[in-house]
């Protein structure tokens, strides 16, 4: 049971205004444009929804990153999921956001809604119930970052333990640090610092970021929570590092994130999965940036069972999702944005997912 009384809105305007003053001072001192990438889609939504960007000085810009799981999933993965239903006659189980993302042929899994072939769940554990209720093979679409992987992994481990047969995992899991590394390595990148994802860090802790950021050519990275106060505090700490010439990983979300992360959750991941090269929409194939099923569990691997073909990247004509994910283009700079690409009829995944940058910009308009 969640105790609602414990969920306090960290929204004290006085604290926010004090942080704003300090941020203004530091921005003045820095005297140049600072681009901070919020890696996580939940940060993007909170910033837009609360109008945090409108509180920042003109030379501090927040740009959205690759932290929306649906957005970085290749369109050809959707094709394979559709193939699972149409040709392999399997029941596909997924989180809701995946439904409306078009595959390379322009249609999405939503065409099977109501047919029983595609089931939307909120918690991976529901999959076990679906498995018990049907004689058809059941495939779970495994997308997400370190945050969602542990519960999915533990569900499958439980399924294996209980000898539930014909239940498969089709992985497209991603891990955050390799993406940061790729963004840093990009010579065109103009990112001055990362606002690091709070939820992912609950699992990872601080060490994996240190390896990527605390080195030559590294940049500051501050772990932030999702309430306005948390975000303002993280931005303040980022500017302070920049002003003092430091490049460190800092934790501005200590009420949820411990330095060592959650070793238990990581152990669950490691039992079922191992790092593997993974294709990201927008970023391409990044070494050891995914989590693949270990060989000893290959009998639950949907790729092995159904012989799914390898994913490739494909972008609908004119869609700038790939550039948006890399922070090279702001959503409202895309020619389709709010014209022929809207949440009801999306062209690319960034407009589909509730965590997508385009959807957040569209939904929470800028007063300009």
């Amino acid at each position, binding site marked *: *049971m*969640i*105790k*609602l009384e414990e*969920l306090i*809105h960290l*929204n004290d*305007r006085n604290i*926010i*205004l004090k942080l*704003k003053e300090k941020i203004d001072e530091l921005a003045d001192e820095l005297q140049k444009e600072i681009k901070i990438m919020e890696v996580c889609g939940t940060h993007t939504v909170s910033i*837009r*929804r*609360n*109008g*945090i*960007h*409108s*509180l920042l000085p003109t030379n501090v810009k927040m740009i959205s990153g690759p932290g929306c799981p649906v957005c970085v999933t290749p369109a050809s993965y959707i094709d394979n999921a559709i193939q699972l239903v149409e040709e392999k006659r399997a029941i596909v189980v997924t989180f809701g956001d995946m439904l409306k993302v078009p595959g390379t042929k322009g249609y999405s899994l939503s065409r099977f809604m109501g047919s029983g072939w595609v089931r939307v769940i*909120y918690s991976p554990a529901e999959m076990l119930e679906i498995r018990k209720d049907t004689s058809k093979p059941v495939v779970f679409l495994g997308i997400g970052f370190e945050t969602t992987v542990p519960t999915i992994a533990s569900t499958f481990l439980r399924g294996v333990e209980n000898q539930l047969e014909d239940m498969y995992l089709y992985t497209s899991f991603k891990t955050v640090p390799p993406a940061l590394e790729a963004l840093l390595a990009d010579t065109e990148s103009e990112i001055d610092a990362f606002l690091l994802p709070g939820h992912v860090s609950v699992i990872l802790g601080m060490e994996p970021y240190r390896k990527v950021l605390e080195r030559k050519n590294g940049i500051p990275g501050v772990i932030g929570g999702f309430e*306005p*106060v948390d975000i*303002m505090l993280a931005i303040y700490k980022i500017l302070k590092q920049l002003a003092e010439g430091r490049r460190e990983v800092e934790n501005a979300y200590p009420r949820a994130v411990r330095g060592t992360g959650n070793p238990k959750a990581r152990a669950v991941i490691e039992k079922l999965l191992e790092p593997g090269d993974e294709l990201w929409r927008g970023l391409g194939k990044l070494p050891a940036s995914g989590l693949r099923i270990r060989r000893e569990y290959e009998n639950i691997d949907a790729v092995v069972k159904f012989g799914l073909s390898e994913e490739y990247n494909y972008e609908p004509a004119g869609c700038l999702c790939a550039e948006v994910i890399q922070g090279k283009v702001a959503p409202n700079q895309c020619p389709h944005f709010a014209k022929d690409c*809207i*949440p*009801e009829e999306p062209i690319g995944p960034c407009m589909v997912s*509730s965590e997508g940058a385009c959807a957040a910009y*569209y*939904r*929470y*308009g*800028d*007063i300009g």
Partner: protein
Amino acid sequence: MDIIKLEHGSGGALSRKLTEELIYENLKNERYPELSDATILDIKGQFAFTTDTYTIDPLFFPGGDIGKLAIFGTCNDLAVSGAKPLYLSLAFVIEEGFPIADLKRILSSIRRAANEAGIRIVTGDTKVVPKNRGGGIYINTTGIGTREFRHRISGSRIESGDAVVISGPIGSHGIAIMASRESLPVGPQVKSDVAFLYPLCRNLYQLGEDLKFMRDATRGGIAAVLNEAISDTELSMNINESSIPLGEKVDAISNILGLNPLEIANEGVFIAVVRGSRGERALSLLRETRGGDRAQIIGHVDSAYPGKVILETISGGKRILDFPRGLMLPRIC
């Protein structure tokens, strides 16, 4: 007779039995005791006329049910249009196999709501559709009310400097529906705010021409209503998020579900726009009426961003508050 059969909608003996022994028995009123094809009404002067169809899922939810909703929802549309609700029609589309016990429960809730609202149900209809061709039961009500407020209620009468008033806390209806659908672990139930708004509206009629706009914030929540009021004008609304009253637990639960309380449907809240100098008067008129004790002034009208609603967020940031997008919660009313 414990479930609805197709024959109940055939027009034959079973239809008559259903109408007479169940529906009519539960709803009959003194003045129109006969069932006939149409009812003659005695209405003087101008009247308001509205219709709405109720498809909510689940049919029974904390704080109400589809019957109560079907009566109050239509009455509220009349009330915010400046009319006193008088007569309602009541039409059912029932799915074959629907439990009679549930129909009885809905009918008695309809009777209680009609009594509270002081309206008469004067005509009706029942159809039965085959199993799996309907969502249990749908209800349509059409309402007639006499015009009491003599001035036009319209977004086009809004002027710069006007005050934006809300009649009570938002979000409870949508959250109650969502929570009962998804069996959320949220502790004690959140109750829907479904309520009869005419007494609150009537008190505001006293403001005369200084009352310019009223609308109940149902589907799309107050985000939709505020935009409807202003989008065709050269004016903008400045809404102060921290002054918007929220129903109990609405804030926390919407946080968990990723919902925006401003976009959540209500069934017992309306927005009014009044002349700026009359804002406080409007507040005291609402607060002295039952159900209006948490009324608030939530913003004002100016011309800085024509056609837009600007939200000053709790954190002090500013953004556009747009029409809600996409299908957030289907079949919520």
